[in-house]
């Protein structure tokens, strides 16, 4: 890569390269967010149950 313009245009393949990386980003961020959200919910449920048992 010699310039930023070359980097962005990807030698004429930008229409394929950048969407491929965008798909990768969506899968990474999406699966990460969904996994973390699932754990937070499970911990919250467990905490609620522990409180109920204590009562």
């Amino acid at each position, binding site marked *: 890569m010699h310039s930023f313009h070359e980097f962005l245009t990807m030698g004429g*393949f930008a229409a*394929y390269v950048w969407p491929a990386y965008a798909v990768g980003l969506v899968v990474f961020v*999406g699966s990460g967010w969904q*996994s973390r959200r699932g*754990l937070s919910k*499970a911990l919250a449920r467990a*905490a609620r*149950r522990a409180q109920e048992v204590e009562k």
Partner: protein
Amino acid sequence: MFTWLHKLGSPPVLYRFAERAAPWCKWTAFALLAAGLVGGLILAPPDYQQGDGFRIIYIHVPSAILSLFVFAYMAVASAVGLIWRLRMAHAVTAAAAPLGAAFTLMALVTGSLWGKPMWGTFWVWDARLTSELVLFFIYLGYMAVANAFPDQRTGDRAGAILALVGAIDVPIVHYSVHWWATLHQGATLKLSGSNMPASMLWPLLVMMVAFLLYFGWLLTIRLRTEILRRERRASWVMRLAGQ
């Protein structure tokens, strides 16, 4: 080693192991992803035939390899769960399935985005592409079957059998380019080495390790969720939640 593996069959031990492994997997994966992206998108020279379009391999090949690896891993865990009746082996399989499906979908979409400029079409019913699509449906099938029963054990057993039967597709995907005349090119990486120059190869290897560690990080999170769901009535979960 077997003693260590046996210990991991205990839910609290496996939970704590996953909790401790998570940050190591996460930060190493992020560091390697950054290095791999810089190497693959900036430092690697354009391919002499495919130009800069070849850079899609840095995301396509790791996701495709991971799609096979995760299913093989699920099949081994399912076998362990069925043979030794280790409940946590089924939890590991259940936690890995959605991640494997996501990586398979990524491999299919990025592969078709590579196929359009190189082959002139987004999709062909070629043996490699079709068997990879079948793998995606097997992942979905596993998730549907494992969650279809009100009884956890029945769901685990049905899912494990499907994972073992579905594992037949893993060698079919891998060897499809040898067994049939496919449009898809042969393996980029072989155990005997690679034809790629080092400047193109190292970012690919780095990205593969980064994807594996990212999967490992998400697996530690999903596994803890799965353990909490399955062990919700256990006293150690109550103590953990009370902290």
